């Protein structure tokens, strides 16, 4: 069994393989942020930070820290050559206008029609949607990177029970159990982590799971 960190890295690594050459990608906070560490060698992938720049680079060394350069999670970062700074209107013009190729976000729940809930639990402190609603409605491809279940409860459902962040938005889900496409026929498992049996994956999923005829092993 993987521990939590291994599981997150396993998911992030698989998501990274989805990022094609020449794409602009926006990574959510938490697990999705890890994806940047696993972009396959030689692939030209550029990251946007919705607070106002394209070309997010690695964390700065101590003497590189610039208080004016932080990511959307307020972590100090650097900007790579070829990057650019802009304001929030431009940043969300890029997002809303469909100029971001892929966004990777976490989720509390995903429904088989692509609905996603990832920003509030009624009765609990609501932190706010930040840029998530815009990213979900604007990005060309939405990948959810998350653990398959929460405390044993399925997060892939027929319908979300939590308030939605966006409707019909999710294209692909990557979990520690497998890779699931969201299609007109609902959830389709296209890759399976061999550590889990199909029955285990099905029972951890709260909606019908079509097994792709071309099912591959997840790696």
């Amino acid at each position, binding site marked *: 069994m993987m521990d939590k960190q291994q599981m997150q890295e396993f998911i992030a690594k698989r998501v990274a393989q989805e990022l094609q050459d020449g794409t602009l990608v926006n990574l959510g906070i938490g697990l999705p942020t890890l994806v940047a560490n696993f972009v396959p060698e030689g692939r030209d992938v550029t990251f946007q*930070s*919705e*607070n*106002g*720049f394209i070309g997010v680079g690695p964390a700065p060394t101590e003497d590189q820290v*610039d*208080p*004016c*350069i*932080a990511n*959307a*999670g*307020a972590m100090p970062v650097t*900007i790579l050559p070829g990057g650019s*700074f*802009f*304001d*929030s*209107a431009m*940043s*969300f013009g890029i*997002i*809303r206008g469909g100029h971001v190729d892929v966004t990777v976000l976490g989720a509390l729940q995903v429904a088989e029609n692509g*609905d996603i809930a990832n920003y*509030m639990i009624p009765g609990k*402190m*609501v*932190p*706010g*949607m*930040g*840029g*998530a*609603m*815009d990213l979900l*409605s*604007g990005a060309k491809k939405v990948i959810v990177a998350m653990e398959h279940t929460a405390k044993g409860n399925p997060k892939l459902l027929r319908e979300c029970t939590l*308030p*939605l*962040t*966006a*409707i019909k938005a999710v294209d692909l889900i990557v979990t520690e159990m497998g890779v699931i496409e969201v299609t007109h026929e609902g959830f389709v498992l296209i890759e399976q982590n061999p550590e889990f049996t199909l029955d285990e994956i099905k029972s951890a999923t709260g909606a019908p799971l079509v097994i792709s005829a071309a099912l591959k092993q997840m790696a």
Partner: protein
Amino acid sequence: MSKLISLEDAVDLVRDGDTIMVGGFLAVGTPERLIDALIAKGVKNLTLICNDTGFIDRGVGKMVVAKMFKKIMASHVGTNRETGRQMLEGETEIVLIPQGTLIEQIRAGGFGLGGVLTKTGLGTEVEKGKQIIEVDGERYLLEKPLRANVALLFAEKADEKGNLTFHGATRNFNTYMGAAADIAIVEVQKVVKVGEMCADEVVVPGVFIDHIVDGGAL
């Protein structure tokens, strides 16, 4: 005529009950000196329009801790536990707005547009109570323009006419809030004389800026 004023004169322009817009994103690009001076002055019952509520010890978060707001309109408040407490205990009204919608509402308020038509928030809680406009068979939420009495902004450099330049990720909401406020005050790290800024390099034209406070280096 130079728009440079003192920190004291600047905060005197903010009155109890005002709606204020404050630039910054998680306290990056926030006018910290203006915020500290407002806290020292002790203005009350403000409505805040800002991307977020920063941290308890940085950015507008310090004003949340000083209980200066009756209402906050922001895209997220999760980094400031005091905002959460005030929200849960009903002390402060919190209106959560998608980030990309919030900035467009501010731009619309400053640029004389009647509203923003966006798909963001369709089918969610954000949609509630709002008009849906259909354009060529596509549905959009109508989000209204936002304006404020005073905008408190941050920039790297200003000339004495208020033309502004920025460094790094500090532009965020600072570029349009001045247009959307009756009075726009900018705290800058450096003030230069008229003619010392290249006209091609200006990011925000001085027409949107009423007053400049020289905040010195960060």
